[in-house]
């Protein structure tokens, strides 16, 4: 048998799961979709004394529209559902566009939103998406709960703000502002493999057609999702143009990301990919923002 021995707990309720996590804390691992955790167990890179399987806990797989037009998503919602559910396509089109890039269909059938965020692999799509979307995560323990923004949640390589006795139970995705476009792009050697570079972008225009706000973040560009800051600030108040987008992309790729070279791609090549993908993503997002503005010209500023 490949994994080291562990005690297996299959709680039937969230309270039971949280109590088990409270008792075992750092000795325990929480099993959601298992698409990253099971290989870690099989390689014995993780050897938890206790495995707490959430898959029999009811009530963690909800997906609903919030009163403000955003989404509320249970941590155990499978990635395949994020890909296919029309509510996600309508309310979080960036997320829907990116999901087919997340591994392979067999993986997405099992992998969960909460699991991918809690695992915090910097090469994964969902952490970068959560940062760009401005998602908030509800963390629960037996003692209570707190909300953490995605930007604060990702601390470093496979490291999050989760305390040992806490688990992610819900992810809240705010609605897109009016006149907002989106784009997700990545390059991988084989579709579904970890990306050599990838970018998720949102761009909001003002009523005059200038960039009001641009937000984008990279995967595979550092120890955690990397949000462009200086480069994103360049766009504020400017009219969208290829030249502007290329300058911002160049700044982000040169100064804001820190990709690690590997046998398939040097760091320099990954910076090149990031620059090209950013320029394309901003161009697509701007076009979609214009289309959204034309579709509802009287929308809120």
């Amino acid at each position, binding site marked *: 048998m*490949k994994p080291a021995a562990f005690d297996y707990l299959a709680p039937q309720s969230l309270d039971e799961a949280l109590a088990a996590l409270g008792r075992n804390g750092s000795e325990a691992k929480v099993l959601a979709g298992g698409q990253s955790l099971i290989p870690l167990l099989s390689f014995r890179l993780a050897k938890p004394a206790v495995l707490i399987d959430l898959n029999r806990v009811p009530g963690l797989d909800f997906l609903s529209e919030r009163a403000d037009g955003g989404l509320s998503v249970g941590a155990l919602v499978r990635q395949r559902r994020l890909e296919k559910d029309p509510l996600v396509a309508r309310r979080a089109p960036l997320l829907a566009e990116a999901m087919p890039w997340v591994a392979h269909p067999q993986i997405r059938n099992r992998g969960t939103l909460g699991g991918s965020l809690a695992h915090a692999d910097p090469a994964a799509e969902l952490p970068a998406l959560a940062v760009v979307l401005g998602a908030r995560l509800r963390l629960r323990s037996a003692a209570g709960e707190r909300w953490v923004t995605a930007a604060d949640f990702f601390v470093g390589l496979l490291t999050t703000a989760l305390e040992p006795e806490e688990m992610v139970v819900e992810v809240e995705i705010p609605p897109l502002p009016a006149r907002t476009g989106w784009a997700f792009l990545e390059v991988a050697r084989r579709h579904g493999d970890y990306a050599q570079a990838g970018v998720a972008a949102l761009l909001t225009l003002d009523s005059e057609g200038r960039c009001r706000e641009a937000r984008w973040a990279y995967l595979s560009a550092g120890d955690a999702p990397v949000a462009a800051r200086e480069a994103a600030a360049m766009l504020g108040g400017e009219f969208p143009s290829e030249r502007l987008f290329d300058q911002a992309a160049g700044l982000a790729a040169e100064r804001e990301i820190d990709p690690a070279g590997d046998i398939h791609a040097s760091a320099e090549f990954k910076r090149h990919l990031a620059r090209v993908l950013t320029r394309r993503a901003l161009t697509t997002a701007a076009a979609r923002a214009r289309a959204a503005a034309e579709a509802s010209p009287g929308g809120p500023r």
Partner: protein
Amino acid sequence: MRFKVEVEVNGRRYQREVEPRLLLSDFLRHDLGLTGTHVGCEHGVCGACTVLLDGEAVRSCLLLAVQAHGRSLTTVEGLASDPEQLAPLQQAFREAHGLQCGFCTPGILMTLVPFLAENPDPTEDEIRLALSGNLCRCTGYQHIVDAVLLAARKARELSGP
């Protein structure tokens, strides 16, 4: 500590006592003797161990056997109703030379069953995308794609007007 696992595999019920760390792929092969499910990389890259869990394609090396308790599985042994008679998808693989050594084939077939149910008339690109999670080292994939196109065409002709 051992746990009881009751599963239905290919319509037949099984009950076994297993350690919780037993992978579903090893459970199928060693505990149930269903060696049609192949084990390649054992960490979710090659797709050879793909089976259906309640009708959805999943990698059995990325599940614990205890997680399948109370669920229904289909393995490659469940495709043909009669050992002497290949299922239409298998027959198409035979006719179009969709396999050479055959090691990856069970996983590819099990990936394709739900894919073709959802996409009865797939394009070549859609087939390649659907199979992106299944590695084949012999065929170069071209004959596999041909086999899927053939299987889809035959199925459409059968269900046609």
